[in-house]
């Protein structure tokens, strides 16, 4: 048969189609099976690694099976998000017992944090670390984020996200250096005394709106000049009594001074 007659044969199309399907299928299987296998294998390795890290650095307060103790709450069901938040911001492990864990330089590397998160996530279902998709604020409404922020967040973190005092030495920290992922996780998991704003009562779209607004707070211009810490009338009052009156009193002294 000539090439043309092969091409014109009715079965040719069907053969090409089946060949194509088989090739795609086998090819895909070849590629993904190893990937899945490798994902599955790294998860287990991760979990094991996480368990080891946990027992070295966390079990003293949180219990060998993360069931909690008098020193620290149970971590069963808190999810990878909580672990990522606490450990990536350096709050955990706590350097010393206190009313509240302050933010500090993280002790663990990113891989170690992922391992710890995987381990804790394996103990019980809980919120996962938010993906980049979760944090994509391009469609979020800035103004709506502002309203949500002022309704749910400003009472603790202050209108400009500079933080505020809570009872007995606790505090709501400043948001100026928090990353979107960390803030999302904080809303989701309610670290320490922060309440929980889960995805049912504060859906992801609204969380993104809030993140967009907080980003605005972090990067916003200060139209009127020096912001004096964005803490309201207190710093303005301090400024007037020190710099303001100080300058005018200095001028008054100059006016009344004898000339040589």
């Amino acid at each position: 048969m000539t090439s043309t007659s092969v091409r014109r044969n009715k079965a040719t199309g069907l053969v090409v189609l089946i060949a194509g399907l088989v090739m795609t299928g086998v090819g895909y299987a070849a590629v993904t099976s190893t990937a899945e296998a490798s994902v599955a294998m790294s998860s287990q390795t991760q979990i094991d690694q996480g368990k080891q890290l946990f027992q070295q650095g966390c079990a003293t307060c949180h219990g060998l099976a993360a069931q909690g103790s008098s020193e620290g709450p149970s971590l069963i069901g808190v999810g990878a998000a909580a672990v990522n938040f606490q450990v990536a911001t350096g709050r955990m492990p706590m350097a010393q017992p206190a009313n509240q864990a302050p933010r500090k330089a993280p002790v663990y590397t990113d891989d170690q944090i992922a391992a710890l998160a995987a381990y804790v996530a394996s103990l019980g279902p809980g919120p996962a670390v938010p993906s980049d998709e979760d944090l994509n604020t391009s469609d979020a409404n800035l103004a709506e984020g502002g309203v949500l922020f002022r309704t749910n967040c400003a009472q603790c973190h202050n209108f400009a996200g500079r933080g505020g005092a809570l009872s007995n030495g606790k505090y709501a920290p400043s948001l100026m250096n928090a990353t979107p992922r960390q803030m999302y996780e904080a809303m989701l998991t309610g670290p320490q005394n922060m309440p929980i704003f889960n995805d049912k009562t504060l859906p992801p779209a609204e969380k993104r709106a809030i993140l967009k607004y907080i980003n605005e707070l972090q990067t916003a211009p200060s139209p009127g000049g020096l912001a004096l810490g964005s803490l309201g009338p207190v710093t303005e009052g301090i400024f007037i009594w020190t710099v303001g009156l100080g300058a005018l009193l200095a001028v008054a002294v100059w006016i009344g001074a004898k000339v040589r």
Partner: protein
Amino acid sequence: MSTVVEGVGKAIGRADDRAPISSLLKDNLRKVFPDHWSFMLGEIALYSFIILLLTGVYLTIWYQPSMQEVIYHGSYQPLVGIPMSEAYSSTLHISFDVRGGLLIRQIHHWAALFFMAAMVVHMFRIFFTGAFRKPREFNWVIGGSMILIGLLEGFAGYSLPDDLLSGVGVRIVAGIIESIPVVGTYLLFFIFGGEYPGHDFIPRLYTFHVLLVPAILLASVGLHLVLIFYHKHTQYPGPGRTNDNVVGFPLFPVYTAKAGGFFFIVFGVTVLMAALVTINPIWAYGPYVPDQVTAGSQPDWYIGFVDGALRAFPNWESEDFLGHTWSWNILIPCVLMPGILVTLLLAYPFLEAWITGDTREHHLLDRPRNAATRTALGATAITFYGILVINGANDIVAQAFNLSLNQLTWFTRIGVFVIPPLVFIATRRFCLGLQRRDRDLLMHGRESGQILRLPHGEFIEIHTPISDDEKAVILAKRDIPPIEAPPATDENGVATPGLRAKKWRAKLSQAYFGENVKRPTLAEIEAAEHHHHDEVAHEIDVLHDAGAPVPSELTD
């Protein structure tokens, strides 16, 4: 002769045909005012007031005093599309869509803070130098009233934009009004035109802020200045200065230039602050919604002491006493405490006059050290006030210094009663110590720090006499003898009327002046000088006898 000067002369001439301008000008143009920086504090307040009037007029051109809800469509992106009152929206408009609008808003608010701070500092100067004494008691009352009215005016001013921060402040004031016995709820409904927040409050506040109060303040300031002019300014004691003269420079041209220049400087500094430092960023607070609030909610500084008192006060309430609710936790810190403070403040000149029995005119100022009890009372009042102001910012203090909010509150609850009396005692002791030092300076001269060892081993310190200027200042001190209580009955056995009050007066008088260090009489000073002279002569003799050189400091 410049054309300007000629022109002014001609204008005055024409005016003179119609009103006695020259008669007014002849004495007042060259009126003498004394020169001291502490006399310019009231001026800061006056110039700030003028700045407030000017910038205030500009703001009224664009501000809308209405609580009508609108949807924002201006240029400030983070608020576009959300509902807010017209008042807030117009303030955003001024800040972002009117050229120079933000500048004028910030000048206005900074000037308001200056106004209040300057009045307070000026009041301190008047108080500590005794300038409120006769004939200036009424001016003190006017001044104190202006501080009060200024406080209300400032509150009204920063509440007009209807932003979240000031709106919460209005809510607090509504809550305070509500708690007043008998008439509270009626007052609340009348002021707000119904339930809180209603839609009448901002327009009513606006009338209060731009019409009523500026008129009252203008009249008060006018009267205050007229009295200063007529009474002539007080002056500090010094050489050539007596209670019957004023030493200084003429109003025209020196004070026209200095005071006029100071106006431009105060204005310029305020404008520069408005250019470089944000104040009241209402766009960041957001519009007022009755269920939103920010951490770190404070009023402007001059109301801080009431806020601090509210925070510190224990939660006393009689829920059902005589069938009604008595909110002691609000009435005492917000009504009683400020009421007592203000009454004592305004009445002080009359109280002190009653205690001292001093009915003379005083135009020579007191050095604070010479009025030890008055100075100590002032320091005590400032301490009491200051502790409350700091407590008004206790959450910011806790946040900034990593302290416990609850512990700070307890510190204030106890400290506000413990610390002021300690300050009183310390200040009084300090003043009396300074009085003793003045007496020593007068009698023995100043320690020069040079020690001379005489040949027989005695160490003496050379004292240098003080200058005439210093002597003039120290010798200006007038000792006021404490009033004595009259006898219970006179020689005929008739009981003295009002004996109790008179006895109290004597006691207070004794407490005020009893410990004052008496100024040495001139006879005593002379005696001390002769004694000093004799001692120095003796030391010189000793040195001569020993053949030692006589240092020049001894013979000077």
